[in-house]
Structures are given as C-alpha cells and as structure tokens.
C-alpha cells in the first residue's frame, strides 16, 4: 500500500500530526547535505548564487534549495515540522516565528550574528528573550504612482514630504468617472496600508506588551477611516474590485493614479518596458501624528532537529553576511538586502525608480510588524471584520471596536 502514503498525508488532520516526512540520508565522512526552503521564485536566482558562494568556502557542505509557493509553504512546513522533518534551514517571517520557537521547532541564534542589522527587523524575531531568526532582507512599503495620469491631470509627483492631505487632494484630481479612472487603490493591506496609517494617526495595532488590541483607539480608527473614506468618496474603487483582480495588476492597467505597494515590486514593474516608463515610487506619506513605516524582513531559521546543526547555522549566518547580501542586491530581484551599505546594486538595477530616496526616508521611521504568539488567529478575525467595513456594510468605527473585543479575547488566551 505504499502508493497510498502521499494521499493519506493530505486527507486528515490525524494523519498530519502523525507525520509523513522523509528524512535525509546519513552522510559519510564529514560531508553534509542540508536543505534550504524558501517560497519566492523571484529569489531563486540570487539564492542559487549565494549557495554557490557558500559551497565554495565550505566544500564539504551541499545546500539543496527547495521552493514551495507561498500558498502551500506554511501548511507544508507545519506538517513536516510536526513530523520532525522540517528542512534544515528555512525562510521564516515574524508572523510565525513565535509559534515555531515555542513549539521547539527552531533553534536560537547567537545575538552576535545580527550586529549591524536594523533593530526594527531583528526585534521581530525575538521570543522569550532569545533570537530565533537571522534576517536577510527588508520589505519596505511605498507609494507607487502613475506619472502618465499625474501629468495628464497636472498634479505634481509625490515627494518624501507628502502628507495624507496631499494624497487625498491628488486622488480627487486624478479621479475621472467618465474614463473609469480612480485616484488611488484602497486594497485592504495590513503591512503597507492600514497598519501604517493607524500608527501615523497616533494609534496602535497592539499594545507594547502584546496583551491588548489597539483597534478601539480613536486614532487607530482615524487611520482606518483614511481608507474607507476614500472608497466612500469614490476616489478609490469599491472593495469588490480588489477581490476580483489583484491590485498589482489593477495598478498596471493604467487607470489608477496611486498605489500603496511594496518597494519589492520594482522587479515586477521593471520587467515590463511600458510600465517601467510610466511609473515611479515615493516613500509612504506622513500622517497627522507622525511618520511610520512598518518594516518586515525575512529571516532564515535553523531547524532544532537538523542532523547538521553546525553547517546549518553557518549557512544561515552566511546568507546575512556582507558578501551574500551584496550578491542578493546585485541580482536585482525582488528582495532588498538588509545589511547597511549593500543596497547600491539593487538601486542601480532600477535606475529610474526613486528607490534610494524611498529607502533612505523609510528606514529611520521603521517600526516592527505587530505580532503576538498566534498572530494569524486575530488577523483572521481582523480581516473578515474589516472586509465588512471596506465593503461599506458597516461603519469602520463599529467594526474596529468589535475587532478589539475579539482580539483581546484571543490575546488573553495566549
């Protein structure tokens, strides 16, 4: 009945916890093969180059790259980890790190290895006083804009000094119902859109100690209203539009003036010569209370059950080293390197985009992404309730208060 095994792995919860992973073959005499799991295909080229560089200095170690698309990555990883067969080194994000650390799936990393890396990113990987991930890139949300629409409407391009009011005024001028043209996209995006605006208005998502929700803070609500107001005033399309078509594709259709999107989209946009000519990028606009940009960085985590702890740790460390960070940057892919002073190559890969200005303006205002132990649980609540506000079914203030109540309940159980 061997052939039934993979099917059985998929069928039930029970089997899942029993585990159905395969483990690597034991190696002879000092040679080690370690597996490295990532989810982004855009990073395949740079990852292969980094692996080659690592293997050159560590000829006894072979690193096997495994790419699993984002949609399946976490489900697969959880299944493998529950069965004690997690990859030796794998991509981790700050949303999931606490869960994996608490579950004893990943092993702590020495504090000395993250020197010189941005604390806004590094601090996202702490749990119980220890560090569980070695960050190697940073994702900066930014304001993309369509120069063609700005020129046609005679509006000046966004700059690093722009505020919410500038965005709203520009959005109004760029909107043209006759052409089905909108000033801005108001997709429901946490990291780059409504979390930053909640903070920029002086509110918060999660209290400092991670025990209380900040959604009922009037300032937070103001940050959410920034988005729902623009939908209501019809300078942004209604909520259903973003669920039918990916906002990234919508923006490229040339009918939307501004788009809160990741700076990492540079490689996607650059790939299309027509889009490349037409758009540019600026830092996130300032809010009424302050500037805030939520930074997320991916980290490499080392499995606690790896057969080659030394080699795995060495590889994770290498990926965050200056040499590997330069390789990452020079490949001009989706990821922006984290170590200061290694970004030049990446900026140069997209010469007409104002990425350096965006980077320089964003890093000093970097704030870690709000996380607790089981972040996904309250985010699921947050997303489905906010969807009602975005769809205009309920006032956002009501919804925010309900999110806070449910979130506090979940946080209390953690």
């Amino acid at each position, binding site marked *: *009945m061997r052939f*039934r095994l993979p*099917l*059985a792995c998929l*069928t*039930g*919860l*029970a*089997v899942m*916890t*029993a585990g159905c992973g395969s483990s690597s073959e034991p190696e002879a005499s000092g040679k080690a093969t370690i597996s490295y799991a990532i989810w982004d295909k855009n990073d395949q080229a740079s990852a292969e180059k980094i692996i080659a560089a690592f293997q050159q200095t560590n000829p006894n170690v072979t690193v096997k790259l495994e790419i699993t698309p984002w949609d399946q990555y976490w*489900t697969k990883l*959880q299944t493998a*980890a*529950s069965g004690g067969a997690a990859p030796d080194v794998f991509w981790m994000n700050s949303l999931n790190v606490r*869960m*994996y650390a*608490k*579950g*004893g*799936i990943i092993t702590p990393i020495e504090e000395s290895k993250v020197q010189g890396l941005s604390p806004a990113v590094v601090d996202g990987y702490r749990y119980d006083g220890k560090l569980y991930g070695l960050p190697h890139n940073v994702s900066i949300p930014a304001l993309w804009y369509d120069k063609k629409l700005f020129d046609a409407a005679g509006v000046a391009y966004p700059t690093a000094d722009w505020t919410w009011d500038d965005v709203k005024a520009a959005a109004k001028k760029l909107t043209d119902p006759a052409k089905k043209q909108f000033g801005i996209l108001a997709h*429901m995006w946490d990291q780059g859109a409504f979390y930053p605006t909640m903070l920029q208005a002086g509110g918060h998502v999660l209290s400092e100690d991670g025990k209380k929700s900040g959604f009922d803070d009037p300032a937070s609500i103001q940050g959410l209203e920034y988005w729902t107001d623009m939908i209501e005033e019809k300078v942004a399309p*209604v*909520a*259903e*539009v973003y*669920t*039918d*078509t990916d906002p990234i594709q919508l923006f490229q259709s040339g009918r939307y003036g501004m788009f809160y999107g990741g700076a990492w989209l540079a490689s996607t946009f650059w790939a299309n010569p027509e889009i490349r000519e037409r758009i540019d990028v600026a830092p996130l606009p300032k809010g009424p209370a302050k500037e805030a940009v939520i930074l997320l960085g991916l980290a490499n985590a080392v499995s606690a059950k790896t057969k080659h702890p030394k080699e795995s740790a060495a590889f994770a460390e290498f990926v965050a080293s200056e040499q590997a960070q330069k390789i990452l940057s020079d490949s001009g892919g989706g990821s922006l390197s984290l170590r200061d002073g290694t970004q030049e190559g990446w900026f140069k890969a997209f010469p007409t985009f104002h990425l350096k200005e965006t980077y320089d303006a964003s890093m000093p205002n970097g704030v870690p992404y709000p996380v607790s132990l*089981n972040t*996904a*649980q309250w985010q*699921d609540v947050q*997303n*489905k309730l906010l*969807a*009602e506000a*975005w*769809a205009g*079914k309920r006032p956002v203030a009501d919804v925010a208060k309900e999110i806070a109540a449910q979130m506090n309940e979940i946080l209390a159980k953690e």
Partner: protein
Amino acid sequence: MHSKREWAWGYLLIAPMALGLAVFYLWPIVQTLYLSMTESGVFGGYTWVGTANFADLFTDEEMYGALANTLLYAVLVLAGVPLSIVVAALLNVPGLRGLSLYRTLYFLPVVTMPAAVALTWSYLFNGDFGAINHVLGTVGIDGPYWLGDPDFAIYAIAVVGIWSSIGYNAVLFLAGLQGIPRHYYEAAEIDGAGRLRQFFRITLPLLTPTTFFVMVITMINALQVFDLVYLMIDLKSPALEGSRTIVYLFYETGFVQNQRGLAATIAVILLGLILVLTAFQFRLQKKWVHYE
C-alpha cells in the same frame, strides 16, 4: 456451508484493502474524534476539553453561516441534476451525428483539474473584465461582482459546481438509460404514446435507481465542497461571509487560525450531518425509487 479454509482465503484476499481502509480511513476517523475533544497547540500538545468544542460551535454564528451556505450550495447543485438527465437523454438519441464528440465535450470538465476550472471561471466572473459581465453589458445590464458580493458568490460557485459535474452524472445516467429494455418503448409506441410521454412515463421512472445514486453522491460531494470556494474566494474577500462552506471553515480554523482541536470538531459535525442526510435519503427512496 463453507469450510474454514475457504473463509481463510476470503479474508486473505480482502485483507490488503481492509488494512488500507483501516490504516488510512478508520484510524484517522478515530483520531479525529479524539482531537475533536481536545484543544491543541500548533505542534502537538493536546489538552482534553471534553465537549467544550461542540458547545463553542453550537453558539458560533460563523458555524451557522457556513452550515447555511453549505446547505444552500447542496440544494443548488442537486437542483442541477435534472440537467444531467436531459444531457444524457439527448446523448442517447439513436443516430445522433458527432455523438462521441459531444460525449467527450460534456465529460471534459470532469477530467480537468479543479484549480484550472476555478481559475478560468473566476476570469469569466470578473466584475470589471469578465466575459459574463461583458455579454450582460451588451444588452444593457450592469453585472455585479459575482465573486466579490456575498449575495451572489455562492450562486456563482454553484454554477461552476453544476457545470463540473454534468459530465460525470450524464455518464451514469447514460448507463441507466441503456439498461432500460427496448420493448417497453415499442409497446408504448404501439399504444400511441409520443416521445415526450415515453420519456416521462417510461424513461424517468425506470431511471430512478440511477437518479437516487447520483443524488446521494452529489449531495455528499456538495456538502464537502472546498476546492472551488478556496480557489475562487480569498480569505479577505467581503464575499466570504456568504460563501464560506463547512470545509472552508474547517480549513480556516485548523490551518489559518491554528486551532486543530476545534477544526476536528467541525469535521466531526460534518461527518454527522452527512450521515444523517444520507440516511434520510435512503429512507425517502422507498417513496420514489422504482426497482424493476
């Protein structure tokens, strides 16, 4: 009477299948039952909570919403079964030209991957660029966001569900049709019954055993619908409220929110629901199924 030896052979021959079923179906069911009485961490660590999960779900609005959506979906898909009978009857017309082509066309959705089906249909349903709204637009109707609106989403998904299952059901009905003895029709013709009358008086009644089988299978499949919803409705979609099915809620609870115990409880409730509804169908069959 059979000898012991014969019994032994019998058991030996069914052993591989029985063992497979026991290990990969029965044991997981037992484990799921156990899990449904626990609260769990992501990586193991189960604490016994008894029936607390069940109590939680009985007061959970989302569970009732999912139940209502799933039942609505099942009713819609069941209502689509007559379509398959019509298709099968048409494919059974003697001397129809290009018959094998039509049979292939109707069966094609069955062998197509659900992911491809869902993707293609979500393009068709797209509110801004979709073919459906484009066609509606040419006759002056401003089509809704089929998959973005909680009032329409489940109907749109049911259309895809029916479309995907017509081929499979039609093949079953076709087999049923060909099992009906010719002489019934000949006799009816002599008595002066027209084509339509023959269909309603002979074909439909004699097809009821197949219809019953198709209804049972369709209902069980419909109650377990997940792939279409998962692929067509995003977790952040405002339409999720109106299209979240029980298995979707199971997925969301177990794999997004990481509450494995509670998810197992949902699976157990679904199992119970399917058992009850199927038993009900079997009781009801005495009233309308004619066995020759």
